[in-house]
């Protein structure tokens, strides 16, 4: 077992975690460590692009990081706690024990998926998942891709895929046109955001952005992914490798996708469907540590302190707010953890503005009730354990359904089906136990 001791320990090397580590390391004499389960820092947006980034924030963070003011533990996944309260992780098949004085949780978010007939077919991907695959070298040049679901991530993904040579046939956004227009109008209050928005709109040129529109079914004649065969959560805790493993095996047959918009339904042919319904926070580690949760998010005070002494939380786990919120919250927590309360307080106004943005973002892209009726009796809800929609309908809560049908008991531990059943049936998520990710028995 490897042992590592530090003053300030940051879990998660995305925008929030890097920003926190950087702020904390401004204080002389404090040891700061940042841990991430990927081979590289950067999180969901910058991971693949570190070193060749276009963003000034990213550049600032990267150059600070490479200055070596703190320890970086890449490829290290935290799965639970030890009896003495330190964190347990696994790095290259070895157990690592991390001792800290202050802990900052910056574990990010994952995509939200909803079951509809055909969502487990080969050629159907998570939107962010497909983007990550392409960043990793998957070739989409010349492919016809439908991007669907909800949230600003769809625009980012569509633009990225287009840039990589894909033909994005449309973006199907479930939110209403009126909500989106109101949201866009409100963007003037957030200067950098409007710039981003305009830039995006121009590079989207030509891609139809259909509002009030969603996928009702997808069909591909290739065999479906079999029981127990899901994304490897060890490799990809946030399903960044996409929903489907079948893409490489599948035949040349295209995907037929049914869309609906204002009572009109039609089908379109494409090579891939990239679908995601906004984001859900990764709160598992916070739950295992005993931090209070409200409405699905880690509860924090103004200084980003959780209910647990010396534990802070920043970024998506405290509310889906996008990269600017992650950066500013990270800085506040980094300063607060280092005892620089004054510096932290000076950022409150900025942070409050990003949280107002987050609120309007989340209400704009709230899921409409019609999406609750997409699954039919045979639609798989829990991929790991192959549990159908019909077999869940008789239960009144997540625990009973889990115990009787194994829904959520598989390797992903309900990370995919949990948010889905919460939306579909209103079930509160079940308990979280360590290991929060599958680990080898000898590591446990």
């Amino acid at each position, binding site marked *: 077992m490897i042992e590592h001791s530090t003053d300030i320990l940051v879990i998660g090397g995305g925008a929030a975690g890097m920003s926190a580590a950087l702020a904390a390391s401004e204080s002389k004499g404090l040891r700061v460590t940042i841990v991430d389960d990927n081979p590289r820092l950067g999180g969901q947006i910058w991971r693949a692009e570190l070193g060749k980034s276009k963003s000034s924030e990213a550049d600032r963070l990267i150059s600070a990081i490479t200055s070596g003011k703190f320890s970086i533990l890449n490829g290290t996944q935290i799965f*639970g*706690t*030890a*009896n003495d309260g330190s964190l*347990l992780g696994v790095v290259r098949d070895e157990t690592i024990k991390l001792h800290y004085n202050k802990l900052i949780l910056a574990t990010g978010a994952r995509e939200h998926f909803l079951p509809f007939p055909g969502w487990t077919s080969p050629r159907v991907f998570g939107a962010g998942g497909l983007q990550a695959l392409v960043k990793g070298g998957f070739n989409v040049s010349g492919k016809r891709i439908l991007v669907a679901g909800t949230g600003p991530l769809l625009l980012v993904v569509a633009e990225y895929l287009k840039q990589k040579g894909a033909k994005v046939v449309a973006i199907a956004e479930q939110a209403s046109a009126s909500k989106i227009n109101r949201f866009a109008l409100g963007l003037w209050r957030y200067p950098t955001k409007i710039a981003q928005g305009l830039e995006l709109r121009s590079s989207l040129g030509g891609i139809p952005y259909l509002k009030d529109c969603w996928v009702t079914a997808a069909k591909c004649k290739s065999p479906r992914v079999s029981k*127990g065969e899901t994304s490897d959560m*060890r490799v990809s805790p946030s399903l960044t490798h996409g929903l489907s493993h079948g893409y490489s095996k599948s035949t040349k047959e295209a995907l037929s996708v049914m869309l609906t918009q204002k009572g009109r339904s039609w089908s379109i042919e494409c090579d891939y469907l990239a679908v995601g319904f906004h984001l859900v926070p990764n709160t598992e580690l916070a739950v295992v540590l005993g931090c209070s949760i409200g409405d699905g998010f880690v509860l924090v005070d103004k200084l980003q302190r959780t209910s647990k002494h010396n534990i802070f939380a920043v970024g998506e786990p405290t509310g889906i707010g996008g990269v600017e919120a992650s950066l500013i919250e990270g800085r506040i927590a980094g300063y607060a953890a280092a005892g620089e309360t004054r510096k932290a307080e000076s950022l409150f106004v900025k942070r409050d503005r990003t949280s107002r943005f987050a609120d309007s973002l989340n209400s704009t892209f709230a899921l409409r009730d019609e999406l609750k009726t997409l699954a039919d009796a045979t639609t798989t809800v829990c991929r790991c354990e192959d549990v159908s929609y019909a077999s869940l309908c008789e239960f*009144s*809560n997540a*625990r*009973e359904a889990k*115990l*009787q*049908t194994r829904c959520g*008991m*598989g*390797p992903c*531990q309900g990370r995919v089906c949990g948010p889905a059943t919460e939306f579909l049936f209103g079930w509160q998520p079940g308990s979280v*136990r*360590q*290991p929060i990710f*599958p*680990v*080898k*028995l*000898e*590591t*446990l």
Partner: protein
Amino acid sequence: MNFDVAIVGAGIVGAACAAGLSREGLSVALIDPNGIATGSTAAGMGHIVVMDDSDAQFALTDYSQKLWNDLAAELPQNSEYEHCGTIWVATDEEEMAEVRRKQAFYADRGLPCEILDERSLREAEPNLREGLAGGLRVKNDSVVYQLCATKYLAEKAMANGTKFIDAKAVGFSAEGVKLSRGETILCDRIVNAAGVSAPDLSAELSVVKRKGHLVITDRYPGFVSHQLIELGYLRSAHGKDADSVAFNVQPRSTGQILLGSSRQFGVDNTDIDPALVRSMTSRAFEYMPKLRELSAVRTWTGFRPATPDKLPYIGCIGDTNVFAAAGHEGLGITTSLGTAELIVDEILGRSSAIDREPYRPSRKV
């Protein structure tokens, strides 16, 4: 309405009693505020096993095992009833002597079992390490997914008219069962099947929590074929020392491996104790080194309802209208069916297939 019997607790014991009593035409209420199979029953391993700690324990487990094998044919597929047998694993000559004693005990009582030497043990379970002394294979033991089996028993009871009442019992009287929401469920007799909570309602019963940890792996079909238990289990499981662990692995029909087990007294929380989990897995690696490489998906804990003499309380409490069916410790999945038959027989004034005396709540413990 006045029920013939109200059963408090819809774990596997209460559900089995409900199925048995309603089969005999009695009107039954089954009361639980937490739904069916959510207590200790949700946490257990589902090993249907004959044990020989005492004659009384043997009688009840042996009788119950036969009842399970009869029930197997009608259990729905999701109960995953697998006739995998048990192998009691011996590490050395001392434990082989115990194997021979156990074999003689079982054979005398007509229980099919066979002694395995070092080689035949490895043939039966190639992933056990080399150099173990041998073992005893007990053929009729099984594994069941007790959660679905419990639901099946409860549904069978309901099909026979049992009424499920979603409420918490707070007290017993001559009239019936008082609920926390104020009303009383009127009945002639009460069965206390509240597991670890049984003493809250019947202070005469001495039941304490004995905490256990389990770990389940990803799917590795064929890695293990029998339920494997170390013979040292006899020492560790029944030792009075606070914490003990034993090698105890179970093949699930999904291909997953369920790994036990730990035993602790005096721990009231459901938290995972990482150090204890480690000593449990280390113990397992001593027998099956290849387990190290398997992926662990989940850990959880549960409480066994333990009595001072390791026998459950079954039968009428004093001269009251209350019957106990509680305190089955680590064998309640197995002995639920036998327990139910003893309760049915006593309520109907019939004699039973096995002697009921050893389980009387009024016995000296």
